[in-house]
């Protein structure tokens, strides 16, 4: 069952108009003279608009949203009364679902539908939580209809002038409150990309207004939410801490060599050779600790950990300095008499260390200790740092985009006094 034989003669020019919305239509524009007609019993005022506009989606066009087919019944251009910017709204209708709206500004779209219960009560200026989202007041405004075409289920012109509008956003969602003395209407909306709108109506996206900038309800990244990222990052951090505790608990930390080397034992040699020691238990880490009894002096050495079977060398160096004194009534010191080197992934085998020392002015000796299977915090911190890069970049990017989003709002949380 379909169609409409419902007609109304224009009160201005007499043209008989077929009324698509039948008795539900309470205001419409005449197809011939373009006058805006109020069809109510006591208000039959008619008016003409000086502003002209063309809807990007033709009246009568049908589009599907969430599986529901809607027909475009009316088109209006609204102008905000304070800053005078304009946007466009399409009135959609489905007999079972009622009406909904498509709002378009700078090529950015929102699909908006009435809801039975408002998400909040109390002062309109207060932000609120609803359905796991935090909605912030984005704008409060009055608007006038500067152009209308098609049919409407309410006097869209008069209602627009008498209504104060509040919009609260939690991208991609928006709640709108239209309030006057006679009615309170809450609607919920969701951002739609131009591609989604084009697909819904089966029309080329190039016929829609070109998209400029980011829509005020356009989400930063549609793949996941900030909350999910925080939870995932915390989960990984907890896992890393647990793994660190596990490795700390299982590390044997076996001292396989410990010795002291005196400068006078060097004689004509340029390097010391430690006694041989065995590294056991497969491939594991090795830590080399160096101590030099320095007093306002320095010590430097190149080290070569050598596998006596394969000849494989693991080279590293250590530079140790320690200075102290008394100046201006205060003691001071800088540097340290100790140094350490951590080498991971050392295969088992028989090893010794060649040490190529350079002594300072007064120091005559140093000690070296080699420990097998040592847990290291450095891997943990490096991993955490790498894991933190993506969330950090995400939140910085989000902050920049959000600050930009709120530039047009009188209620920006990013404004500093």
């Amino acid at each position, binding site marked *: 069952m379909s169609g409409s034989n419902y007609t109304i003669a224009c009160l201005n020019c007499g043209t008989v108009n077929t009324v698509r919305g039948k008795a539900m239509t309470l205001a419409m524009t005449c197809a011939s003279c373009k006058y805006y007609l109020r069809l109510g019993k*006591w208000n039959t005022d008619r008016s003409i608009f000086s502003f002209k506009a063309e809807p990007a989606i033709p009246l009568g066009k*049908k589009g599907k949203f969430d599986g529901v087919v809607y027909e475009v019944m009316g088109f209006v251009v609204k102008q905000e009364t304070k800053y005078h910017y304009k946007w466009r709204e399409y009135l959609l209708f489905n007999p079972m679902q009622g009406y909904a709206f498509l709002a378009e500004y700078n090529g950015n779209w929102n699909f908006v539908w*009435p809801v039975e*219960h408002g998400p909040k009560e109390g002062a309109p200026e207060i932000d609120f939580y609803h359905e796991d989202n935090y909605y912030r007041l984005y704008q409060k405004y009055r608007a006038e209809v500067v152009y209308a075409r098609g049919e409407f289920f309410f*006097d869209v012109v008069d209602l627009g002038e008498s209504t104060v509008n509040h919009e609260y956003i939690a991208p991609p969602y928006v709640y709108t409150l239209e309030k006057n003395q006679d009615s*309170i209407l809450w609607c919920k909306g969701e951002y739609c990309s131009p591609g989604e709108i084009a697909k819904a109506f089966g029309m080329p996206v190039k016929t829609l207004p070109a998209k400029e900038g980011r829509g005020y309800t356009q989400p930063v990244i549609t793949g996941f939410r900030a909350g999910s990222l925080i939870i995932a990052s915390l989960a990984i951090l907890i896992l890393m801490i647990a793994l660190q505790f596990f490795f700390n608990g299982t590390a044997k930390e076996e001292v396989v060599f410990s010795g002291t080397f005196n400068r006078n034992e060097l004689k004509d040699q340029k390097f010391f050779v430690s006694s041989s020691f065995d590294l056991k238990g497969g491939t594991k880490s090795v830590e080399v600790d160096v101590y030099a009894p320095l007093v306002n002096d320095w010590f430097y050495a190149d080290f070569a950990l050598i596998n006596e079977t394969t000849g494989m060398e693991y080279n590293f160096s250590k530079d140790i300095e320690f200075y102290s004194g008394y100046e201006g009534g205060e003691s001071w010191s800088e540097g340290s008499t100790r140094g350490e080197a951590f080498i991971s992934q050392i295969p088992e085998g028989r090893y010794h260390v060649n040490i190529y020392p350079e002594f300072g002015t007064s120091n005559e000796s140093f000690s070296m200790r080699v420990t097998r299977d040592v847990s290291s915090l450095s891997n943990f911190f490096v991993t955490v740092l790498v894991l933190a890069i993506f969330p950090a970049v995400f939140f910085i990017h989000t902050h920049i985009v959000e600050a930009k989003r709120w530039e047009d709002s009188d209620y920006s949380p990013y404004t500093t006094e």
Partner: protein
Amino acid sequence: MTHNKVYSCPGCSTAYEVQLERATLVVCRVCSEIITDAVNGSEKPKPAHIPDDWSFLQIGTTGVYKNYNFTVIGRLRLQLRNEYKNFWCAIYEGGKCLWIVESFGSFALFSSTWQEIKSESAHLHAGKKITLANKVELRGEYVEKCEGVSYTGEIGSWIFFYPGFFVMQASNASGQTAFITIKKSIAHILTGEKVTLKELNLKNILTWDEWK
């Protein structure tokens, strides 16, 4: 008007048996003539044809709500200044009246009887808090002037059959709702609950093929 009594339409002689225990009006579905009514005085109804619209309920629509089977037997349509409200009169439990109030996909059920309230009725407005006798608090959603009343079939308890009165609906987040008529500072209230279309399990509805 007597329950189960058979009346003959004065216009076309069609016989009609009153189904509701407390019916106010019976309109002939064949010729739109008033078959019988239980109204006295200035509100005595005259034939008022329902205009064509896109409603998908109809007389004969059945449904189930909370184990109650109901059948729509009448319709009263209020044309408001910026809205319309269909009061679908349904019968359940052998003679009780259930109002299914519908507009633009929004539904509410009212099985209570009208109660008169006098306090502050002249000052009702959207957003106003209303406290019912059972302490339930509601907030006004809209206040509209009624510009037209039309009806067909069998109509349960109803007060105004001529436009000019005001109507208000108030609700809360729990889905409790009230429909209020206001005329000359006297208000009558009907309490009920908001429901979804799905919850009504409707059958025998009109299918508008263009929107499939």
